[in-house]
């Protein structure tokens, strides 16, 4: 039987369910000491002086350092810019420890190492720093209009500008029958994996080499950055992402100051040093998405078909650009979505503010773009007098135009070409499951009873599985077990199960015969990282290709050993035999021993040594998944609370390796989208002080907030990888806020209020219902 396509139970689960997972904080080698950071309480200031004496005097403290005296940290060191781009004019990245100026509240100024974390935190609080205040920049508007820079030496706050588009927008607007215009302010908070970040660095006995464990999505990126900043060579540094990492969602895909400082401390002190982030630090220092402001207009023909879309988008980059302009770029290239859009132009301005940097969070800038175009479509439908489903029907790319070239270049440098998918069928499937045609009747009946029902919909297309590669090595051990090694590191995506499924299928063994080793720079020399819904495509294809090659090696070796033709050899249950001759064969283990060679003897039949192969599958370009969400909601007119009563997800990610895992990704992604629509706000006050720094202030979705997704699975395979699969990690999130906000707007349609921001809180809805005016929105 084949494992591919089946709901295979997860191999990760038994340990996690019994409390035997191994997360970063669970690692405690003998002699481990603990680091804690002194962080800037101000959003923007110059450091006048730092007095470490009180901290150093605390019993149990081993060392206290700043930028100027941490051994091994070159003066002036900065974190690398992971993805440079010519459009970036202020390529600021953070100093691992502040170097004279602090540019957001929470920036690390000093670090303490002590016998335990309680003492380290006590001492960190005793580091006395004197600051000279500099004027802070708290948001996009103050960055563009406030008149002072977020970095003292800069003339302004524009970090990068880019224009994305194609076609003749001016003519499109000149000839348009209808134009709709809107200013949209989508807001997204943080990733908020339930496990915060953490780093443990262990020097070896002679202090030369270092093993670093980091709760990261990208161990190879962490390794390269440690090498770059601390001037170490590749053989000196091994980075391991623990096999158990408690959620990633994007923010763990970059390299942070602690990833550099903790290894430097371990080398300086010759002891294992550990730092575990707490939730407050996570709010202060771990990257978020926050704000974009879209000022856009849409041109349409009289029949509601699209002519063009143009405008500007301002993006809050925060204080530094660790991930360059990737996120706003993804936003800009996502806008056309599933629609035939003849002309498009977006000017993007990335601004610097004195807030924590922004980098992709699940969805990665796409939810904002989907929000922009889907909200404009609803507005246009109303203006033209079309049904909201109808305007989408008239504009969706017909299935017979696949593959469809949009006219844009994606973030991976390849042209945006939608490879497969029947978008109109997806739309109809969603409308049918949502019982859309009878909604008007439900809404009327509800109104008659004083109930406020609303429906909203949103479509998305998502570039997934982007390259360049994620490698895998497959080998048969002498005990007959199969080992799969991959550079990819999991944070809950079930790599142990899914990658084993693929190897087991190729080699015809029970899945329990396969071990999967993830995210270790010592087993795989190069790697990229787990983000952008790319691992199933990249690592999955690599496992598939490598395992197929190993299979061939098994067959060739067995043929040589059994002295038969390769085509007469068959594999079953970890054995190889002459077809139709039971008992004639050899086990994988026996063959693996033969393939390991005997000292001084030639390989049998000229076969290659070792039953092993590796593969770095590199997709030609991204493969485009898509989907359609329909939300039906009810508003409590008394409180303004939103109850999502039916939520339909039509999801097409090509072929599916494990439907149970994909269902889990969709439902979990939806929860994140619902949080963005209704709950999650990362707020800064006008002095750029973060004011939502606990889970009491920053609301994550709870069980009662999240509807159970009613999922319709469609399958349009791709030929861009050998498995026909597309990424599935973000589709649950991407259109959710757009669909939910559209439903809210529909429920309060009688007020005539357009809602072009999110999240929308019960208080705001209450305000809209009672004043027929949108509440003040803080951007």
């Amino acid at each position: 039987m084949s494992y591919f396509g089946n709901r295979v139970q997860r191999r990760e689960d038994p340990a996690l369910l019994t409390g035997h997972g191994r997360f970063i904080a669970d690692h405690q080698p003998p002699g481990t000491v603990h680091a804690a950071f002194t962080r800037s309480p101000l959003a923007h200031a110059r450091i006048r002086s730092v007095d470490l004496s009180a901290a150093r005097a605390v019993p149990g403290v081993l060392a206290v350092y700043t930028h100027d005296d941490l051994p091994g940290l070159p003066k002036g060191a900065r974190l690398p810019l992971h993805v440079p781009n010519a459009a970036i004019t202020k390529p600021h990245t953070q100093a691992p420890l502040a170097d004279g100026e602090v540019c957001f509240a929470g920036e690390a100024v000093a670090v303490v190492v002590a016998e335990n974390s309680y003492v380290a935190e006590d001492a960190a609080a005793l580091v006395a720093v004197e600051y000279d205040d500099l004027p802070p920049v708290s948001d996009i508007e103050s960055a563009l209009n406030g008149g002072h820079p977020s970095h003292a030496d800069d003339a302004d706050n524009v970090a990068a500008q880019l224009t994305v588009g194609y076609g003749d927008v001016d003519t499109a607007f000149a000839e348009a029958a209808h134009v709709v215009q809107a200013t949209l302010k989508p807001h997204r908070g943080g990733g908020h994996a339930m496990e915060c970040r953490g780093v443990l660095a262990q020097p070896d006995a002679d202090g030369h080499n270092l093993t670093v464990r980091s709760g990261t999505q990208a161990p190879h990126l962490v390794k390269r950055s440690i090498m770059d900043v601390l001037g170490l060579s590749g053989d000196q540094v091994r980075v391991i992402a623990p096999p158990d990492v408690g959620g990633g969602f994007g923010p763990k895909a970059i390299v942070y100051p602690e990833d550099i400082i903790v290894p430097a401390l371990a080398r300086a002190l010759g002891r294992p040093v550990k730092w575990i982030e707490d939730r407050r630090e996570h709010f202060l220092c771990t990257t978020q998405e926050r704000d974009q402001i879209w000022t856009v207009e849409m041109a349409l023909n009289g029949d509601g078909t699209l002519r063009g879309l143009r405008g500007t988008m301002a993006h809050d980059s925060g204080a530094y650009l660790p991930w360059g302009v990737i996120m706003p770029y993804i936003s800009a290239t996502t806008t056309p979505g599933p629609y035939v859009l003849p002309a498009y132009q977006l000017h993007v301005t990335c601004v610097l503010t004195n807030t924590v940097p922004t980098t992709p969070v699940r969805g990665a800038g796409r939810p904002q773009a989907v929000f922009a175009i889907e909200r404009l479509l609803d507005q246009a439908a109303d203006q033209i007098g079309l049904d909201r489903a109808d305007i989408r029907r008239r504009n969706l790319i017909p299935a017979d135009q696949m593959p469809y070239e949009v006219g844009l270049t994606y973030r991976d440098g390849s042209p945006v070409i939608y490879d497969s998918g029947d978008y109109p069928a997806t739309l109809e499937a969603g409308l049918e499951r949502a019982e859309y045609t009878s909604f008007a009747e439900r809404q009327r009946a509800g109104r008659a009873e004083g109930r406020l029902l609303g429906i909203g919909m949103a479509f998305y297309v998502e570039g997934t599985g982007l390259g360049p590669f994620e490698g895998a090595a497959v080998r048969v051990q002498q005990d007959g077990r199969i080992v799969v090694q991959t550079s990819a590191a999991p944070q809950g995506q079930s790599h142990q199960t899914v990658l084993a499924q693929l190897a087991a299928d190729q080699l015809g063994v029970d899945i329990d015969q396969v071990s999967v080793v993830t995210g270790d720079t010592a087993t795989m020399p190069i790697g990229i990282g787990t983000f952008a819904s790319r691992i199933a495509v990249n690592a999955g294809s690599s496992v598939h290709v490598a395992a197929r090659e190993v299979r061939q090696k098994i067959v060739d070796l067995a043929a040589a050993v059994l002295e038969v033709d390769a085509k007469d050899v068959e594999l079953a249950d970890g054995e190889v035999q002459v077809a139709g001759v039971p008992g004639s064969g050899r086990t994988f283990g026996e063959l693996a021993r033969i393939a390991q060679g005997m000292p001084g003897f030639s390989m049998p039949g000229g076969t290659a040594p070792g039953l092993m192969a590796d593969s770095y599958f590199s997709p030609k370009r991204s493969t485009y998944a898509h989907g359609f969400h329909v939300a039906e909601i009810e508003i409590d007119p008394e409180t303004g609370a939103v109850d999502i009563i039916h939520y339909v997800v039509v999801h097409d990610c090509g072929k599916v390796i494990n439907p149970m895992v994909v269902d889990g990704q969709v439902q979990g992604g939806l929860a994140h989208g619902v949080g963005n629509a209704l709950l999650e706000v990362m707020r800064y006050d006008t002095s750029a002080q973060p004011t939502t720094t606990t889970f009491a202030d920053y609301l994550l979705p709870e069980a009662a907030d999240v509807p159970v997704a009613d999922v319709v699975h469609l399958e349009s395979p791709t030929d861009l990888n050998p498995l026909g699969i597309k990424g599935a990690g973000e589709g649950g999130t991407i259109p959710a806020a757009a669909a939910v906000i559209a439903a809210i707007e529909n429920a309060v349609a009688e007020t005539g209020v357009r809602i072009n921001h999110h999240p929308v809180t019960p208080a705001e809805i209450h305000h809209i219902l009672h004043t027929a005016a949108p509440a003040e929105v803080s951007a």
Partner: protein
Amino acid sequence: MATTRQIDCTVNGEPVTATVETRLTLADFLRDQLTLTGTHLGCEHGVCGACTVHVDGAAVRGCLMLAVQVDGSAVRTVEGLSDGDALSPLQQAFRENHALQCGFCTPGVLMSMQSFLDEHTNPTANDVTEALSGNLCRCTGYAAVVAATLQTARDGVEHHDQSPTSGGNGS
């Protein structure tokens, strides 16, 4: 200097005597001193529920209690939920329903749901959802957790005679 005290308690049925700093939280005591690292810390301010353990049969937040407060008590952690290698019915249902992804919230979710099931034999989906509101999970979107808990409750009612005791905490 830090003040310390001696405490006596049982943890997963085993007697424990330990000297602890008076400011040490229960969660840190379990994790660092007893190396029971199944109890996780997601916020350390009482909201996420990842640190949920049972003290004298009641679900509590390990990050909000001090170790000295469990002197004389029976503590049960996720490590005490299963019987040797066999998963408990709730753990098994979590696996079957894919009620965990990264698994970081899972120990706390299990302890909350087990405590709920100990007191409710025939809950509705709404009851379970309500009971789950004290636990945050960023991965699953909760639906599978509710399904797994309901399935456990149903099976418990059906196999009432063989249902394992909820004990193990000595209370």
